């Protein structure tokens, strides 16, 4: 089954942004100079005044720095970083000034905000727009990192993030697959079992969730369980380990280079805490260790055929 390519799921995000701006005067949408032109922000600048929807500099580090001041003085900024791919520019202020703030101050200060960050490869995105920042962001203690997927709408995650008191990087897959049924009441830190199975757990996040669901369909009659991690930092170890304990086998997908990534952390957790349940090694299906090439993105990303080969290897071990 082939899913149509999709861009950032704008409808879910726009509705959630509108509800948040309506329902909480502390919420401020802050983005670059073209914020109002983005599909998920369209009409919001006209609907709310210039103090609630703010077009700031075209610089991710500057936007996060501005949001830190807003958050520390009681606002709940949503920082839109989707127009570019410059989260790397913001790393210093993220790592020093934002993520560790609550810990450094022993809980006295915190700067709750939601960062909307593009993630993953997509046809035509290439090496500049193909960044997979989750491997960087998940190393920052204090920053929550969550990822939308075809099954986990970004709007639901945005609402959950605004309800908490932490800085949250909400990753928005550039190619997340066609959205599935609408979902409500998603917890920010809970993995979701999207499909039950008894023989093997496919673990994925972001754009790879749609691939995992397709692969599980294609692997029938094998009973494959599909888990959407949703939260990449912290990982919901309980749900993950319970699933692997049930099935005894695990394959981890990520639309990101293979080494030092979320899949490696998942494999380490399973090895430490559930090895007695394992019938086979944990395999990773990921992109090669290199940037996303401009013209070979379909080969770069994990696809159904590669996932099926991994499933076969693990089931036959």
């Amino acid at each position: 089954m082939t899913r149509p390519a999709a861009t950032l799921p704008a409808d879910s995000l726009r509705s959630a942004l509108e509800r948040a701006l309506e329902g909480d005067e502390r919420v401020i949408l802050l983005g670059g100079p073209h914020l109002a032109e983005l599909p998920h922000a369209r009409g919001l600048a006209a609907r709310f005044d210039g103090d609630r929807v703010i077009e700031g500099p075209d610089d991710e580090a500057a936007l996060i720095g501005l949001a830190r001041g807003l958050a520390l003085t009681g606002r709940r900024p949503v920082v839109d970083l989707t127009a570019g791919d410059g989260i790397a520019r913001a790393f210093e202020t993220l790592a020093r000034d934002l993520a560790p703030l609550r810990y450094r101050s022993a809980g006295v200060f915190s700067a709750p905000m939601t960062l909307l960050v593009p993630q993953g490869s997509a046809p035509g995105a290439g090496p500049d727009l193909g960044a997979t920042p989750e491997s960087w962001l998940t190393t920052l203690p204090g920053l929550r990192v969550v990822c939308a997927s075809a099954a986990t709408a970004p709007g639901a995650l945005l609402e959950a993030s605004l309800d908490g008191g932490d800085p949250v990087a909400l990753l928005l897959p550039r190619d997340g697959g066609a959205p599935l049924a609408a979902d409500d009441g998603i917890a920010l830190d809970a993995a979701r079992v999207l499909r039950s199975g008894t023989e093997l757990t496919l673990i994925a996040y972001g754009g790879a969730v749609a691939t995992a669901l397709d692969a599980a369909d294609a692997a029938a009659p094998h009973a494959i369980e599909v888990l959407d991690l949703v939260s990449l930092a912290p990982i919901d170890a309980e749900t993950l380990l319970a699933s692997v304990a049930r099935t005894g086998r695990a394959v981890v997908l990520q639309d990101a280079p293979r080494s030092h990534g979320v899949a490696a952390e998942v494999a380490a957790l399973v090895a430490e805490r559930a090895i007695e349940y394992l019938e086979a090694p944990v395999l990773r299906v990921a992109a090669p260790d290199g940037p996303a090439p401009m013209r070979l993105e379909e080969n770069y990303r994990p696809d159904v055929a590669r996932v099926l080969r991994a499933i076969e290897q693990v089931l036959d071990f």
Partner: protein
Amino acid sequence: MSRASRTAEDAMIRLIDDRGAPLFEGRLGVSRTELLEIHRVAALTRALEDALSGLAGGPDLPWYVPALGEDAALVAAATALGFADPVFSSGRMAPRALARGLAAATWIHSALGTSASPSGGREAPGFAGHPDENLFPASATPGAAALSAVGAGLARSDDAVAVGVLGWGSLGSAAFAAALDAARRTSSRVLLVVVTSKSRGVGAAVAAAETAGLSAALIDGDDPVAVRDAVAAARARVREEGRPELVELACRREMDRGPSAGRRRLAAFLEREGALGAELAAEIDRAIRGEVASALAAARAAGGPGPEALHGELRARPSAEERRVADAFARFGAEYGGAADPDARFLV
């Protein structure tokens, strides 16, 4: 010194000269009592920071960055602000903290990271924020304090002006340039105070601000009377007119431990005005010595934090896994992850 910087120095606003003689006519907008307090807090800052600098590099304090040469300017600037003004800093916060009434003992606990420090020993020396004084944690990222202040100024409070206090090291940063641009474009209600060094040339902050379209003023930072006056006036304009401003305070940054040029000049002015005699100066000095000695003794008695301070406060809502680790650590301490801790298997 370059020709350009000599020209800029000539343009600095002063209200008293190097010998404390007034260069103004009429009444000052600040009382002699307030100026005396600026003198006292600047002296207290220097005494505290001299004590901390003496400990730096030793077992109690890895490092410490004092406000050498800037103490009087920074205290004078702090007293010109409203107490509700949120202040964001790039470091050297002691003058602001003490000017806003933070106890010397609290500053020492904080700098040494004792068990009684506000952060429980987690924060870098002198970087902790103090919520009761509206002082937010300092940022070592060059220029980041300016951005945070501009962001806070977007709240457009009727009662407060957001303030960013930065050093010359921030001037070349992309963050500082972005902050100036964002301040102008958003009409943030922010006042940026930049301390520069006379030995490195002055006027760069003013030039950057004016290029970005902000109003800016260059003040002789070694003249605390002019600093107090200029910062108060700039703050009032920001509040009333709703547009950002920058004030550059050019200081002589001496690296010895004597009184700063600003404090010497202020003392000379107060002596001329009959507000500070030898007896009062000695009394202030005695009180400060006592306060610092007592604060140091209290910090030494408190000691460092225990291992129980390692966990917790990472997130508003910790995950089940994080709670499990913290609980195990709290219950088993040094035996954490060991045989006595059956629930903490593989947590070593």
